C-alpha cells in the first residue's frame, strides 16, 4: 500500500511539474494518469499492490468530490440573479450531452463494426 501510494503521488508530482513547465492545457493529475498508463506497458511495472490500492481509492471516488460540492455554498450568491437561465442551461445541457455522446459512440460502433457481440447484454 505504501509503495503504491508513493508511485501515485510521484506520477502526480511529475504531471504537475510538466504542466507548469510547459504551460500544458491539462491538470497535473490528468497528465500523471496518462504517464502512469504508458508506464504500465513496461513488463512487471504493475505489482498486485498498485492494482489493489487503485481499486480501493477508486471504489470511493464519489466521496472525494463531497468537499468541492459543499463549496457551491460559498458562491451561491453569484447565481442568484440569473438562476433561471443557469439552471435550465445546466439541466438540459447535461441531458443533451449524455445523449449525444452515447448515441454518437453507438452509431459509430455500428458503422465501423467495432463492437464485440459477446459482451452485448441487451
Amino acid at each position, binding site marked *: 500500500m505504501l509503495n503504491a501510494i508513493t508511485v501515485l503521488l510521484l506520477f502526480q508530482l511529475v504531471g504537475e511539474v510538466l504542466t507548469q513547465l510547459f504551460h500544458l492545457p491539462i491538470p497535473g493529475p490528468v497528465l500523471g494518469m496518462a504517464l*502512469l498508463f504508458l508506464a504500465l506497458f513496461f513488463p512487471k511495472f504493475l505489482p498486485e499492490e498498485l492494482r489493489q490500492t487503485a481499486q480501493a481509492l477508486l471504489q470511493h471516488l464519489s466521496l472525494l468530490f463531497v468537499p468541492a*460540492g459543499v463549496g*457551491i455554498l460559498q458562491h451561491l450568491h453569484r447565481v442568484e440573479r440569473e438562476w433561471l437561465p443557469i439552471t435550465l442551461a*445546466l439541466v438540459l445541457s447535461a441531458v443533451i450531452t449524455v445523449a449525444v*455522446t452515447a448515441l*454518437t459512440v*453507438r452509431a459509430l460502433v455500428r458503422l465501423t463494426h467495432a463492437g464485440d457481440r459477446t459482451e452485448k447484454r*441487451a
Partner: protein
Amino acid sequence: MTRFVDIWVYLATTPLLGLTITLVAYVAGDWIYRRANMHPLLNPVLLAVLALMAVLLATGTPYTTYFEGAQFVHFLLGPATVALAVPLYFNLAKLRRLWLPLLGGLIAGSLTAAVSAVGIAWLFGGSKQTLLSLAPKSVTAPVAMGIAEKLGGLPSLTAILVVSTGILGAVLGPVVLNLLRVSDQATRGFALGVTSHGIGTARAFQESEQAGAFSGLAMGLNALVTALLLPLLAHLISFG
C-alpha cells in the same frame, strides 16, 4: 445548550470535525442510496452535499473552517485521478477496438456540452459573463477555470457551474442512458465522463470497473479537447 455551543466552537477549530462530518454524511448518503436500490436521484454525493450545506448554514460555520478538515479528503482527488490509469490498462483490448467511435463521441460531446449550455442560457436571457463562464462547464474544474478566464468569463462562477454539472450529470445521466437503452459499459462510462468529468466517473465506477475506466479516459480527453476547441470556437463566433 451553551455547553453544546462551546464544544462546537472548540471542535470547529480542529480539522477533526470537518473531516468526520464529511465521512458521516457520505456514509449515511451511501446507505440511503443502497437501501433505495441505487435509485439515480438519491445519488450519495448529492445527499451528502445537501446535508453538509444544511449543517454549515444551521451552525453558521464558514466553508473555510469546514474545509480545513475536509481538505484531507479533497487532497486524495489527485492520486485517485492518477490511479484511473490502472483500470484503463485492464480494458486495453476494448480501448483498441473502440478508439474511433470514442473519438467521434468525444468531439460531438465536447461541442454539444458548450453549445447547448451557452445557447439555452442565451435564450433565457443570461448575461454575457454568465455565457462565457458556462461554456467549459463539462470539463474538470482546474481546466474549466483556466478556459473561462481565457474566454473572459468568471473562474469562480465556472467552478460552481462545473461542480453542479458534475452532480446533475451523475444523477440524470444514467436515467437518460437507460431511456436510450445504452447497455454497453464502455459507452455508458464514456458519456458520463464527457458530460460530468470526475463526478460522472465516480458514478460510472458504481456501475462497473469498465464503465469507470472509460469514464476516466473521457474526463482526461475532454479536458484536452475542450481546452483546444473552445477558444478557437469563441474566436470564430466573435468574428463571424
